């Protein structure tokens, strides 16, 4: 996109300003100054701004209310959960969380641990596989220029396609119900997207930096580890966020490849589907616990998330 600006500006008869490049990089917080003079339009007036805020707040309120509702539900006595009219004011109780951990023989705690382990493992393995590959793809001379497109296409593969073969594969290895199977599966499926994303970031590393390191006599590995990776920190963070969300939320393979050692997500859904006499209170409590880390993560990284995707998308 940063190369389009000057071209488009030229086409429209304007002048190309160096602010363009700066703007593309720092797009996040730049504010468009309203035009002065008689050409002020409705959209730029005070009322227009209030309207805008109102619209945004309305959306946020509507879109977050199910979340807030669900969290509230987990603190209700089970009979309150399905009460009509819905109770907004109720006596909160921790009994759902209590029974969640004691009733099911604390297998939910195990589920959470497994989710954490699988997620962390996935991030680790995927990065270990993707970083060198992205590096090679970006900085080393490669015959055949089609690899990036192949990657993109590979990232589009519907995981369901792998369901049947992988199920048999892990069964044959006797690794059903082994979290390692999940880690490896998730990593394999995530590598294409990861490499694509990381490559997008690596493409933005200034050429001079790479050249200087080479002149210093840096070999490929040194270049990758000591120079590229620190510079790409934000990109690695962005990729990690995507990976965490994917691994934590994944349902299909988690359900198929596990029986007792389930991830939290698979555990919740399995209970929902199979257990007819299930206690909705505990279910909501479990749901809240599964969702809470994600909400915290969102607050921590919202900036990176968007930057990551936009960067990768535009440059890739």
């Amino acid at each position: 996109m940063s190369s389009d600006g000057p071209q488009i500006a030229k086409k429209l008869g304007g002048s190309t300003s160096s602010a363009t490049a700066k703007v593309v990089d720092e797009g996040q917080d730049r504010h468009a100054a309203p035009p002065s003079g008689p050409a002020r339009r409705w959209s730029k007036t005070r009322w227009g701004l209030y309207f805008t805020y109102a619209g945004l707040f309305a959306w946020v309120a509507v879109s977050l209310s199910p979340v807030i509702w669900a969290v509230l539900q987990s603190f209700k006595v089970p009979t309150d959960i399905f009460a009509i009219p819905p109770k907004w004011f109720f006596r909160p109780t921790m009994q759902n969380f209590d029974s969640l951990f004691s009733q099911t023989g604390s297998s939910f705690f195990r589920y959470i641990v497994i989710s954490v382990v699988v997620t962390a493992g996935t991030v680790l393995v995927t990065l270990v596989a993707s970083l060198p590959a992205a590096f090679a793809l970006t900085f080393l001379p490669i015959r055949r220029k089609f690899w990036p497109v192949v990657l993109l296409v590979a990232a589009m593969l519907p995981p369901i396609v792998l369901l049947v073969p992988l199920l048999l594969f892990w069964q044959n290895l006797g690794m059903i119900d082994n979290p390692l199977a999940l880690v490896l599966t998730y990593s394999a499926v995530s590598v294409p997207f990861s490499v694509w994303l990381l490559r997008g970031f690596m493409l933005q590393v200034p050429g001079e930096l790479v050249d200087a390191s080479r002149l210093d006599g840096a070999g490929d590995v040194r270049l990758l580890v000591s120079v590229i990776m620190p510079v790409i920190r934000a990109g690695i963070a962005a990729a990690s966020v995507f990976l965490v969300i994917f691994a934590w939320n994944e349902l299909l393979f988690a359900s198929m490849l596990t029986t007792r050692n389930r991830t939290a997500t698979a555990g919740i859904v399995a209970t929902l589907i199979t257990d007819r006499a299930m206690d909705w209170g505990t279910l909501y409590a479990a749901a809240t616990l599964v969702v809470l880390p994600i909400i915290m993560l969102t607050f921590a990284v919202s900036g990176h998330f968007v930057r990551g995707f936009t960067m990768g998308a535009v440059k890739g």
Partner: protein
Amino acid sequence: MVILLCLPAFLLLGVLVGWPIIDGILLSLQRITPTAEPGWVGFRNYQAALSSGAFWHTLVVTLVFTVISLVIELGLGMALALMLARVVRGAGAIRTLILIPVMLTPAVAAINFRVMLNYDYGLVNYLLGQLGLASQPWVSQAGVGPMLSLILTDVWRSTPFFVLVLSSGLLALPQDVLEAADVDGARTWRKLVHVKIPMLAPLLLVTVLFRVIDLFRTFDIVYVLTQGGPGTSTTVTSLLIYNDMAVGNFTSYAATEATIFMVLTLLVSILLIRALKAQE
């Protein structure tokens, strides 16, 4: 050296993606079911699948779901993005709050929606009643309800994705071009359609690409919200494949359906990527 660096990735992909795809194709050429003798049957499975009403039905369901969801998410997302791009104070906070539904576990969100859309006890019907509107059988009866519920859930979940990416794109638009348009007397709508959107085109296409593929392979929310029902009215292809494998144990037939699905998805991806490349 290149080979060495790419080795872990190649290994992972080769063993867990490449080989399974080949294996899946091989399986689709066999007959592996709970009852029959295993054996090679060539393309018979493909004939069965392609002439099966059930399979095409799921493709139609998936298509309907994908297109309607995409259009709504794109439109809403663009509108909200335009709003967000104009906000300075609190933009970061609003962005974070908007982002939450995207990151949440789809399956868990779907569970919540299932309760909220419950005909008798659901929050949604209660609110409708308060507004004087009739209670709707969201997922309980055949009709538009179930599909609408699915679309609603996905729009709720994925519109923020568009909002965030597009608002970043908008903010990154070169200011001088926009000002040039202002000087030329372009009014807001004109400026939007003729200047902003064309400049956003590459970003739009990539975002649409990702969303379309994601929508195509939707599984989680359908599995939890409707289980493909009532009947098969909301059975997306992913769910069909899953049911055939996990429930029916029709290993080879499921593999066949999956392979056809893969080819179709590949075609759509390549078409969209082509369009993307043409833009550059």
